[in-house]
């Protein structure tokens, strides 16, 4: 009897925790969509901001964020996947590589403002890139690298050793074995991890605050050495730095909704990619 009661209490407790989370998230989503949707029209999406962002659209911030996402992918993917392949396939397991692995995992827990300051110090100032798409993308890439490396390593490790042995026994080189009989099967996992990591980074303010984001820049960048506006930072400005924040409240909601759609779109892309590859390669 008491066992039964405990069981019931535990289940209700767990259910409550789950529902509470769903309700909170649902409320946030609903609030943003409800207030943001009316603001969202073609002009809001495609026009330049005016009067310090108090009027007009958010076009340059959307473009800026997309550029930053693209830049981050271009930089982080080859380095992340490359080092994951090295760590899991080539490097022998010794104290040095274990330390490297630990360092990478620790890096994932470093607060994003620290990455921002690091990017400011190294890329903006020391390498003299200035606040720019380049500096911002590298900083964001540094931030998502741990996620990409760890998830890629997991995806590589999920491929049975017997596939590698089977290839090698047929006279392939190690790289041929990896390229033809490991990477294709782990590709889904790698891409999923990368997209999820980058999706999260795309919404971050701190790392771009000091390395790329412009307060108000109503034109598009001409090169990777230009500054851009970016959605998260724009939102932060509208919400906190504006003389009359309540007046620009609808714009905040609109910006938040666009950012949300972008990030959720990336996650959705990740989910689709994953299920596609799951179906293609099963063993």
């Amino acid at each position, binding site marked *: 009897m008491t066992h039964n009661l405990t069981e019931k209490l535990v289940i209700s407790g767990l259910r409550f925790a789950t529902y509470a989370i769903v309700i909170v998230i649902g409320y946030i989503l609903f609030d943003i969509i409800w207030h943001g949707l009316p603001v969202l029209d073609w002009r809001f999406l495609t026009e330049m901001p005016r009067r310090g962002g108090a009027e007009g659209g958010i076009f340059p911030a959307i473009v800026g964020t997309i550029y930053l996402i693209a830049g981050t992918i271009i930089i982080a993917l080859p380095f992340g996947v490359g080092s994951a392949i090295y760590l899991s396939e080539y490097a*022998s*397991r010794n104290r040095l590589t274990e330390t490297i692995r630990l360092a990478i995992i620790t890096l994932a827990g470093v607060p994003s403002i620290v990455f921002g300051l690091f990017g400011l110090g190294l890329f903006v100032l020391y390498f003299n890139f200035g606040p720019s798409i380049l500096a911002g993308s590298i900083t964001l890439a540094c931030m998502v690298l741990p996620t990409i490396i760890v998830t890629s390593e997991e995806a590589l490790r999920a491929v*049975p050793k*017997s*596939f*590698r*042995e*089977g*290839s*090698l*026994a*047929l*006279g*392939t*080189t190690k790289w*041929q074995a990896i390229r*033809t*009989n490991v990477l294709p*099967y782990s590709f889904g996992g790698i891409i999923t991890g990368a997209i999820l990591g980058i999706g999260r980074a795309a919404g971050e303010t701190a790392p771009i605050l000091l390395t790329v984001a412009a307060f108000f820049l109503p034109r598009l960048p001409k090169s990777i050495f230009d500054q851009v506006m970016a959605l998260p930072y724009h939102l932060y400005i509208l919400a906190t730095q504006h003389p009359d924040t309540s007046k620009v409240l609808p714009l905040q909601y609109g910006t938040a909704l666009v950012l949300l759609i972008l990030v959720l779109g990336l996650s959705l892309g990740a989910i689709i990619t994953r299920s596609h590859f799951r179906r293609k*390669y*099963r*063993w």
Partner: protein
Amino acid sequence: MVGQEFSNNRAIEVNSLNFYYGDSQALFDINIAIPRKMVTALIGPSGCGKSTFLRTLNRMNDIIDDVRLDGRIMVDGDDIYDSKMNIVTLRKKVGMVFQKSNPFPKSIFDNVAYGPRIHGTKSNSQLAEIVEKSLERSGLWEEVKDRLDDSALGLSGGQQQRLCIARALAVQPEILLMDEPASALDPRSTTKVEDLIGELKKDYTIIIVTHNMQQAARDSDHTAFFYEGRLVEYDETSNLFTNPKEKQTEDYITGRFG
């Protein structure tokens, strides 16, 4: 030891081979000469070093960290542990079939074509020919010829193992190493794989690890008995089974241990 009758016709010659996993020695002073186009069976209790020995012959142990080896292994007159030896060439010549069949998650066709493709055969008609021949040799062609594009993972266990044999044959090896190829199969598939080995020995030198005494006695020309990392006895199979010279061999084949 087996006499001189095949001294000119040795596929493999092993001299004073010692093998170590880190600090623990797995093989002790192995000397053996393996004749061409015959079946040599490796028997012995579990953990006596049969797989380790087999994997020294195509250098598959190289991929394990922290292993060491001394002695000399000649394949076709080439010292395979010489620094000039090309491992790719060696592994093309010395094919391997694993204990647990390991079809790749690709189509049946792509599994068999995998090796030739990597080694540079591009023409589709040539590949198709190799695939058909290899599947025929492994006795699988009739069963799969209408579904070459299906995933290899849909095959039964026995078919999967014969597919792996076809995949090994497709790179045209001279020597086939088989590590208990039938141990994970049901009796009927086992028979098929064993029959296949009898067929293949016309064209290949086969070295097979087996737990099954009947199979060793029936299918092999020579048998090597390993015990605790040493090669205890090596002889023509008929001699070794009817008239073992060593007490340990006798105990093992009569089922007193192992």
